[in-house]
């Protein structure tokens, strides 16, 4: 990742310290903003109901979408706001955009701000492209005259010159998106709020969007991007912020934020996964010993659900013997999400004769390894076996008994993260 970061530095690379040292006025400041929605349990929607029950107050459940959120974005900075669904990131964006009023705190914006929560806001399918451009551009803040003046540029960028008088409903969805995007980039604002508009379109169009973002960033404009696409955050953002349940949980370096985000995402998933697996556990063995628990340990030996790529880590399991067993084998199989075996370890080749274990004895076996696994979720199947003629007989084998998430911010298609160096000679 270090390599990627250094090569990326084409835009105004602002580090955390550089920002706080800048004497410049910040472009956007959010100061202790809170926002609570009242979700009515039973919404009174008609006057009749109101008239019949004038004193009945509809009960409502408060939903704290944002709790004491603060941030400061320097001019020219590309700032990422990430979070899972329901974390409050879109609410924050809408507060910044002035669509929602905040309950507490204040938002300061220095410069002209434009919001892109959706492409083609105000598009009407029954109007031709020309009118829709006019409508959309005016909505986004251009004056009607300015919008008319830029029409040619917009239509050329969208490559829709031959279709200017075609009604929008006869456009293909791709053409419509192209048109909307062209309008969007014509809007000159000092500060842009962008909400996952990237999620639309085919690969070629997304590339065009990315190119445009790079251009916007290089032109020195301030961008706040709300997304859950970590690769976009790491590609573009100078700084980022992670929201969870309306609170800021991480703030600063995009890579750290990205790592925290993956952790949050996977720990939740892993939890639901294990609880589901527990109902239908696949388990073999004669019961002469039982695997009581299994876990992963990080480089410091602490139990964890997250392993970081590159660290010295370990898998461990606690076994209780119900019977005397001679020279048992202890092992683990690690498979990734695609059910590919990634590690198959046991004492068979290293220490095949650990001796006799007695009934009632409880031991822990630990298999440590350098974590070269690529980011993702892994399932461990620990097993205790005894050596029999021509193989092993299960004493206890618990299928997918433990789960761990490996976090690494480097995107990779490879199964493992082999350490490598790169040298470019010319």
């Amino acid at each position, binding site marked *: 990742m270090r390599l990627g970061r250094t090569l990326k530095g084409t835009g105004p690379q602002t580090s955390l310290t550089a920002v706080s040292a800048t004497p410049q006025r910040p472009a956007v400041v959010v100061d202790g903003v809170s926002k609570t929605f009242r979700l009515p349990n039973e919404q009174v929607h008609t*006057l009749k109901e109101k008239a019949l029950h004038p004193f009945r107050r509809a009960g409502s459940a408060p939903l704290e979408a944002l709790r004491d959120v603060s941030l400061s974005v320097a001019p020219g900075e590309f700032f990422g706001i990430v979070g899972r669904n329901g974390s409050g990131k879109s609410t924050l964006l809408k507060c910044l955009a002035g*669509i929602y009023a905040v309950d507490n705190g204040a938002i300061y914006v220095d410069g002209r701000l434009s*919001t892109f929560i959706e492409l083609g806001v105000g598009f009407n399918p029954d109007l031709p492209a020309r009118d829709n451009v006019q409508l959309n551009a005016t909505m986004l803040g251009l004056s009607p005259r300015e919008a008319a003046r830029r029409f040619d540029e917009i239509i050329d960028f969208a490559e829709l010159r031959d279709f200017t008088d075609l009604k929008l409903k006869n456009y293909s969805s791709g053409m419509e998106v192209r048109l909307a995007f062209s309008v969007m980039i014509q809007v000159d604002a000092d500060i842009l709020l962008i909400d996952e508009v990237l999620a639309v379109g085919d690969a070629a169009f997304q590339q065009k969007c990315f190119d445009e973002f790079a251009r916007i960033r290089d032109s020195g404009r301030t961008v706040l991007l709300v997304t859950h696409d970590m690769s976009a955050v790491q590609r573009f953002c100078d700084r980022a912020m992670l929201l969870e349940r309306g609170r800021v949980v991480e703030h600063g370096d995009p890579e750290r934020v990205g790592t925290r985000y993956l952790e949050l995402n996977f720990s939740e998933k892993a939890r639901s996964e294990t609880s589901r697996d527990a109902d239908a556990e696949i388990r073999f063995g004669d019961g002469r010993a039982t695997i009581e628990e299994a876990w992963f340990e990080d480089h410091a030996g602490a139990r964890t659900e997250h392993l970081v790529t590159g660290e010295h880590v370990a898998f461990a399991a606690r076994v209780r013997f119900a019977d005397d067993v001679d020279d048992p084998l202890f092992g683990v199989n690690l498979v990734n999400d695609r059910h590919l075996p990634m590690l198959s370890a046991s004492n068979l080749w290293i220490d095949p004769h650990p001796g006799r274990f007695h009934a009632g004895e409880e031991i822990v076996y630990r298999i440590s390894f350098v974590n070269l696994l690529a980011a993702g979720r892994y399932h461990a199947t620990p097993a205790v076996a005894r050596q029999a003629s021509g193989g092993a007989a299960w004493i206890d084998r618990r299928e997918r008994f433990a789960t761990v998430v490996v976090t690494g911010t480097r995107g990779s298609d490879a199964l493992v993260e082999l350490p490598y160096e790169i040298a470019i000679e010319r």
Partner: protein
Amino acid sequence: MSMIDTSDLGRPIKGPSALGSDPRRFWHLTQTMAVMDFKLRFFGSALGYVWQLMRPLLLFGVLYMLFAVVLKLDDAPYYPEALLLGLVLFTFFADSTRGAVGSLVARESLVRKIEFPRLAVPLSVVLTALFNLGLNLLPVFVFLLVDGGTPRWTWLELPFLILLLAALGTGLAMLLSSLFVRYRDIDPIWEIVMQLLFYASPIFYVIQTVQDHSESLAKAFMYSPFAAIIQQARHAMLGPGHPSAANVMGSDVLLLVPAGICVAVLVLGYVVFDRRAPLIAEEL
């Protein structure tokens, strides 16, 4: 992060509001939305604008047949023109208020996706209706001139009367559209109110008929700003054959009542809309 120095940051943004902070942008938006709505009606169907013109004209045809030809109630001077003028003004009033009721809800995607002065939505509805009124008034003048009428100085009164009617319509549009977001039965209620208004205003009959019946009933009619405006418009356009609103009421001072109602509705509408504006995006 909570110890941000906010002293030199200027004023915090104020969130969604009725008018926004830039009056030019407010006007641009209102204008663009109104023009586009108008275009949609104009080009939306095969006969396009013909239908816009036909609506009051067809109703005029039916009512004229019934009241003038069958019931022979057309003893007032320029009865056809009086009828058509009433219908055209009623159409304007109905378009602006009925159209405004659901306007914010219909533009939900806009309200929830971008920041803009919320008032632009109902105001653009009134503006579209105003464009329509301008075109619908043309046949009234044509009818009058063909029927032997002559231009009068009092025609200059018409713009002021229309402005007053637009003020009333705007006030109601603001009130209805913002309340409809929360109370959905505003729609059928307003439908009924408009029907009552149609019969309780001198549209297909003339005020003289009411006066013949009961002088005080005619006076009572004029307290309704809508009825008073129609009556005054008839007087201004068609001449002294139609009494002025003041004449019907018997006093100039009493005219302040319907005029005052117009202003009061406008102010009330704005106050209510302004208070609801920050919440519209959340309540939709």
